[in-house]
């Protein structure tokens, strides 16, 4: 467990020891970086997403529900 991870735990505290070695399947590449661009124009962001923990039923079922914004 790296020091930086310990720091991250303080900044983003999670109870982590790190496991699942070998399951990480990221790819490496020698290609040059392609810098991301500035913010692209997009439509209005008017839907609220949230996690619903109510439907746990034996496990923890997050329902992610977009909600039409319509409050005052």
């Amino acid at each position: 467990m790296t020091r930086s991870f310990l720091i991250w735990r303080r900044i983003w505290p999670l109870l982590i020891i790190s496991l699942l070695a070998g399951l990480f399947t990221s790819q490496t590449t020698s290609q040059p970086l392609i810098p991301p661009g500035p913010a692209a124009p997009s439509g209005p962001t008017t839907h609220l997403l949230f996690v619903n923990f109510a439907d746990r039923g034996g496990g923890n079922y997050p329902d992610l529900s977009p909600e039409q914004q319509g409050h005052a």
Partner: protein
Amino acid sequence: MPELSQAASLYSQPDPPHCQTDAVYAAPNGSAYILQYNCEDTLFARLLNLNNPDAVLLLNQGYFMNWSPDGAWLLFRNVETGQVWLIPINGGEWQPLDLPAGTYDAAFAPDGQRVLYAASVGLGFGSEMGVLNLADGRLTPWQTFPDHLVAHAAWSPDGNVLAYVLLPDTNIPFVIGELWLAEPASGKQLMLLAEVDAGHGYAPVWSPDSTSLVYVHRGNPDDIQADLEPLALRSNLYQVDVYAGAVTPITQFEDSLVYDAVWSPDGLLAFTADDAVWIWTPSKMPVQVSPPGNYRHPAWLSSPMP
């Protein structure tokens, strides 16, 4: 208050054993989002793209760091290797970033061409902050903080100023941090804006117009239990005008845990308070938009359903 019957399920799946959904991060353009999971012995994330709803990308053994401004890329850190990856959300190849060892935090510049990093080599050695130029790979250290950890560094949306939190370099998990305004091209401290809750991972968030920051204010700073137990925090959201320095409470809950502040592009602030989702319109009172008890982690999307 809107009717929750208007809500439609977008994604539903049991959390893996010993895991829980810890955070949700919507892309700036609202077309994708990250689910960050916190497990007892590891952590991972899922990427869901509204334009390609059948393809859920699993990001193992690490944590999401930041979206690119155009929402086409993200930064992800593998906690086993320490490697920070630049990941395209369209399924392209991941690119490793050549950041310093011990990098624990990273964020894009508003132009998307640079990445701000924070790194530390060990307890008691403080931290450093610098910039990686993505176009040429050049790394430029900016500032060192011998007695602090720097966290949540972020440019204002217009790029004119920078803000970050300094935490004491201590083994106490939850502390009071300092929210600083800083020069955008060097990270040099300009003005102490406020004392903020620190250690829980609740980043101050810039308003869309770049004039203010909303942050989590700890209401029980003398509670020793709250230094150790994350749920013992009692908090409210405050707003600080970064140019005038004026601080204003947004919420005034008593004995509540208030966090998860996130702005919509058109200036609405959603947040979590005691497992309910609320929305605040500037100059108005906050409005609860969910029933109490089971709702957290608001985020803003551009479209409701694929």
